[in-house]
């Protein structure tokens, strides 16, 4: 029972289609990271249906995480949960689980910003200290870097998120989730066989990008049926990734930082990894890529960020633990970085 002598935090993630429970020590060891993903029969995430899924699997995922970590819930010292941003019904389900656990075990509760957790887990797992971060997922496209107490947002999408753009196109092309493979991965596989670059809108405004026009143009070409699907997959990736890479490079040149961190679900894409690595190299910066199992939404990132917050004096009283659907990254104080 040596392990239980260590302080442990359990984190609950439920902002979108994943329900995850992670357990980390206060020193940053990850003891468990269990999750269950809601897979709609067709179309995108229906918030209410996803929330129903989360409620159904909560018990199971929680037990799995505790068993994997080999801990008795009585030995947990802290409960963290994803407080936002995200889908309301989904966030509320996770928050309810976290509140119940914290009051039952009589331990402190801490609400964690979901975007921040993606950055912090990336730093923990790659050793990055002060990076320019490109966080790309189904719900977010953010270029940020730490300046004076907060993670400042240097660039972001003016409309849809990068992962959303790729997913919607993949669904329009009737690509399917294959065993353990996301739509994004299916699209990436097809793109690898792309030979011809089809011209699509390339929209960079200042440090921001706009992806909705790219999606519309690619979808229109798809339905016209004049282009090979592989070429379209290749072209949508090349255009979208070049756009986010360009704005990341701008932030890198502006801040003159020496590390680039790629995090979020789309971080698993090899082509994007290559592009960002190439830019980092050009600016004599180090490229860090979050490991795959921590790239998508997960409970461990919430637990770890909860530890950082709690050990720097932050707790969330139950009455203030309501979810914040539009909680921007730059609104969060970061007392653990000087």
């Amino acid at each position: 029972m040596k392990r239980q002598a260590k302080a442990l935090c359990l984190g609950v993630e439920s902002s979108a289609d994943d329900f995850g429970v992670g357990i980390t020590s206060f020193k940053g060891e990850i003891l468990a990271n269990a999750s269950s993903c809601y897979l709609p029969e067709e179309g995108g995430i229906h918030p209410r249906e996803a929330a129903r899924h989360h409620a159904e699997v909560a018990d199971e995922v929680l037990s799995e995480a505790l068993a994997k970590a080999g801990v008795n819930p009585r030995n947990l010292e802290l409960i963290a949960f994803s407080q936002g941003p995200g889908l309301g019904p989904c966030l509320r389900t996770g928050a309810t689980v976290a509140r119940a656990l914290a009051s039952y075990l009589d331990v402190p509760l801490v609400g964690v910003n979901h975007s921040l957790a993606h950055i912090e887990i990336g730093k923990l797992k790659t050793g990055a200290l002060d990076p320019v971060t490109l966080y790309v997922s189904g719900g977010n496209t953010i270029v940020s870097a730490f300046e004076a107490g907060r993670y400042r947002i240097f660039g972001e999408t003016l409309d849809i998120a990068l992962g959303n753009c790729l997913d919607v196109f993949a669904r329009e092309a009737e690509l399917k989730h294959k065993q353990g493979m996301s739509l994004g991965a299916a699209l990436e596989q097809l793109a690898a066989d792309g030979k011809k670059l089809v011209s699509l809108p390339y929209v960079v405004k200042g440090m921001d990008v706009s992806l909705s026009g790219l999606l519309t143009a690619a979808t229109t070409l798809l339905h016209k049926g004049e282009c090979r699907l592989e070429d379209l997959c290749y072209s949508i990736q090349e255009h979208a990734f070049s756009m986010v890479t360009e704005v990341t490079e701008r932030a890198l040149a502006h801040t003159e930082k020496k590390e680039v961190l790629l995090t979020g679900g789309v971080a698993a894409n090899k082509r994007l990894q290559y592009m960002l690595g190439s830019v980092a190299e050009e600016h004599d910066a180090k490229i860090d890529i979050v490991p795959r199992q921590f790239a998508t939404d997960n409970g461990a990132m919430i637990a770890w960020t909860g530890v950082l917050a709690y050990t720097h004096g932050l707790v969330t009283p139950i009455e203030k633990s309501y979810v914040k659907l539009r909680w921007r990254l730059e609104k969060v104080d970061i007392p653990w970085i000087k």
Partner: protein
Amino acid sequence: MDKVDSQKLLKKGAEASLFLADWHGRKVVVKTRLPKCYRPVELDAKIRSYRTSHEPQLMHEAKVAGVPTPTIYLVDMKQASVTMEFVKGKQMKQVLAGVLGKERRELCVRIGRLIGKLHKNGLIHGDLTTSNMILNEEGKIFLIDFGLGEKNTEVEARGVDLHLMKRALQSTHYKFAEECFKHVLKGYFTVLGAEDAEKVIEKIREIERRGRYIDERKQA
């Protein structure tokens, strides 16, 4: 005739590299858009040549509209490079951080007026940051880097342009961003007139609500 001597790297930006050089006895800046190896060759060529040909046109039109910009001497489409006047001065980014409240507010009003002049003449800068403004030795404010600019009179484009200015102030001058932007708008109003300026302000609010996770959207 088009020979540019003794190039010295001034700044390696994300999009282009700036070299300080000598051109027929003048001190000039050569802005070269070097190929980016991360993107496909066709896309790279398209982006570089588009920006190289558009930037000088926009800078010229801005000057005609009464907005100081460096004079263009030479455009080399093959090298994707533009040779222009070297403006001796300080980046607005540093200037704003080093002056007191009143002077800062006055500078912001002047910046707002310049943006107003651009918009009034159908020009969009596309990358309004305090790094892209230079206060020269005579106290004139120059706007540089029109690489992402366009000719557009739509309220949408004007709104995005000013929204970017606001965002740039927030990420670089977070301590007094709000006050600065308020004064930028003040200057903007005087040039564009209340009616048109109001439309742009309303558009900025709409753009912000469109963005993700903005508190204001709750009330919308």
